[in-house]
């Protein structure tokens, strides 16, 4: 072969190799994160409208999203608190067992290890009437010391700060339920941030002696999970499961009065917000008359409130945390207001 032929062969081979790799290579191209400078040589980008994908519903968490990433109905945390009941002899007894080997599906497909009161995150919703003698027995089945700290008025040795309950031990907290309102409870063993983050929180509702007007009730705890422990939460949630009430909307009736007990147990400020409606606000639940008529309320750390509202028009309404970042990572859901034939005219204010 002459030199020319060799050169021709080599160049042709390279060209063929290049063509072959180009055909194969569509499967394995590569990225880089280097700096980019768009220049006049690149075509001008298309108008913004060109970039919007077809969407339904909120456009963010698709209203009809792929079924396999939904929560099963069985995993949804029941948002309805136990109704107020009279206490036998004015005494209420509860047993809360702490376990450290819980697994919670915080978002469909993502399971995190959690520490639980009675096997659930959030812990069970406790209810008492102002003046009841409350006895809560803590049984510690974990490997670390735990406590229960109640918000409310009680003696210092029932506060759940100094009296650490050792693994395998138990302790009975006894106090008179006071004042009426929403009193969160959580573990206060150190480091408290870890014990709370891992799921040891819940809500106690203390009703005023005269009771509140009976109506449909919902209890919602706002919290979040930091999966990779980088200081930023990765999923936020109503009742510890991101988007669960978007997968399974809460059914309400048009014109039906609703009372929602909301508590923030996370280390960030939250802003619960109802769409298409306003609510009467009882901060901390410690008043019998509402103090505000609004549609969003900032709940600081450990703050809580009672919201009372009713929906006049049917349809789906989002209820969310108005911190957009929180909403986008799970703190949203739908209230499905069903049509009623006869809408009772209620006094609004």
């Amino acid at each position, binding site marked *: 072969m002459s030199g020319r032929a060799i050169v021709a062969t080599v160049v042709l081979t390279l060209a063929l190799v290049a063509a072959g790799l180009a055909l194969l290579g569509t499967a394995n191209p590569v990225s880089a*994160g280097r700096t980019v400078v768009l220049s006049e040589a690149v075509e001008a980008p298309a108008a913004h409208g060109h970039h919007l994908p077809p969407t339904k519903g909120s456009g963010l968490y698709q209203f009809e999203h792929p079924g396999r990433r939904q929560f099963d109905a069985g995993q949804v945390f029941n948002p309805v608190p136990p109704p107020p009941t009279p206490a036998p002899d004015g005494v209420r007894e509860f047993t809360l067992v702490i376990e450290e080997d819980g697994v919670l599906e915080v978002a469909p497909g*993502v399971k995190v290890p959690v520490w639980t009161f009675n096997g659930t995150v959030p812990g069970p919703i406790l209810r008492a009437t102002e003046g009841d003698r409350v006895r809560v027995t803590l049984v510690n089945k974990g490997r670390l010391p735990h406590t229960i700290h109640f918000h409310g008025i009680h003696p210092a040795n029932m506060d759940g700060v100094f009296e650490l309950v050792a693994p395998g031990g138990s302790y009975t907290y006894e106090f008179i339920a006071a004042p009426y309102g929403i009193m969160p409870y959580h573990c206060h063993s150190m480091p408290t941030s870890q014990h709370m983050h891992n799921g040891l929180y819940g809500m106690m509702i203390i009703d005023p002696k005269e009771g509140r007007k009976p109506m449909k009730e919902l209890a919602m705890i706002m919290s979040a999970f930091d999966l990779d422990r980088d200081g930023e939460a990765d999923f936020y949630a109503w009742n510890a499961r991101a988007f669960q009430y978007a997968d399974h909307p809460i059914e309400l009736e048009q014109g039906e009065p609703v009372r929602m007990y909301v508590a923030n147990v996370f280390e960030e400020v939250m802003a619960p917000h109802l769409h298409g409606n306003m609510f009467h606000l009882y901060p901390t639940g410690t008043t019998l008359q509402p103090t505000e008529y609004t549609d969003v309320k900032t709940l600081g750390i450990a703050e809580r409130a009672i919201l009372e509202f009713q929906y006049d028009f049917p349809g789906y309404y989002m209820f969310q945390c108005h911190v957009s970042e929180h909403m986008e*990572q799970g703190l949203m859901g739908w209230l499905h207001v069903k049509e009623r034939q006869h809408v009772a005219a209620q006094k609004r204010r």
Partner: protein
Amino acid sequence: MASEPATPNVVAETRRGTTLVVASALLPLLLLGGILYLFVRTGTGLNLAAPAPIEKIEFERVEFLPGEIRAHVINTGPDEVTIAQVQVGWLNRSAWDFTVEPGPTLPRLGRATVVLPYPWVPGEPYEIALITANTLIFTHDVEIAAETPRASAAMLGTLALLGVYVGVIPVFLGIGWLPFLRALPQRWYFFLLSLTVGLLVFLGVDALHEALENAARVPGPFQGVALILAGLSLSVLGLYAVSNWLKQRRKEATGGLVLAYTVALSIGLHNLGEGLAIGGAYALGEVAMGTLLVLGFTVHNLTEGVAVVAPVVRSQFRWTHLVWLGLLAGAPTIAGTLLGALAFNPLWAVLFLAIGAGAILQVVIEITRHQVRQAGAAALVGGFSLAGFALGLAVMYTTGLFVAV
């Protein structure tokens, strides 16, 4: 010792010898198979479980299409991994709807494409976070979002033309200096060879540097640095083999033309890698393709033409060889830009750049030996040689100022 007739005893012994050889070759393999089978069936008896699951997902490429983001990922962890949730970050992360093709569970070294119907805005930074079923999070940052160019006749034409501007034309321009170089006095030929060595050394180190950069982006299991080693050494040895074979065929007195062809081949391979880098950068929207860049590359590669003809300044040959030399050195750039734009993969970039660097190394060695044969080893460190080498480096560095980002 006189050869014995093959008596039955000798034959039997030979057969026994052969059997022994075969058996001793097979036995360790059979034993290994047996051990592996036992491990699979009954376990190793070692408690080597990691305290937490070890997973690793690497992003190979992220494409931006109108209203859609496609992230091509590969599982480089030891076990299979399931992508459970995806979040897209702009300032903060949002959980987003997604599908994984072919499926959310990836076996080891398995690939998948995460498709996100997301309204991305050009020029904005985005972060794609994959959350696995074991709650590990793998992220990829896109500093500026830009629509990924799709293969079209216009784009391919542009890239081929780019290859011509950047590769072919400069080489031929450099070759055009041949009459001038021939007219120079004898001792300038030595200077010229040293200049060429300086140019090539610069190119070779640059190629190695880019290969190392790309090796860092190759997913772990594919061992980018090992590929550099393989490419470099195989290309050095391979080129020696090729040039020896060529020398035998041509039986030339000086071998100058053969040397010129090896220089052209090595530069061609290097240009393939360079074209790959340019094409890949364009496809990823990374290149500021202003005229300044094209200009810079053109001037930078002018010197390659000089390097190609330097060995044959004192030789006689048909002019058609110049055409072939030019094409051999310049045309692979076109293949490189097209390949880089359509199917860039750091794996191929590493290989081609390493091969290019090895080829350059071989050529540098050959030219140096050529110089020693001509003027002796002492001349290598004489004034002319050093001046030429230094000038070669200086020219490459200066023209590189227009090109390097």
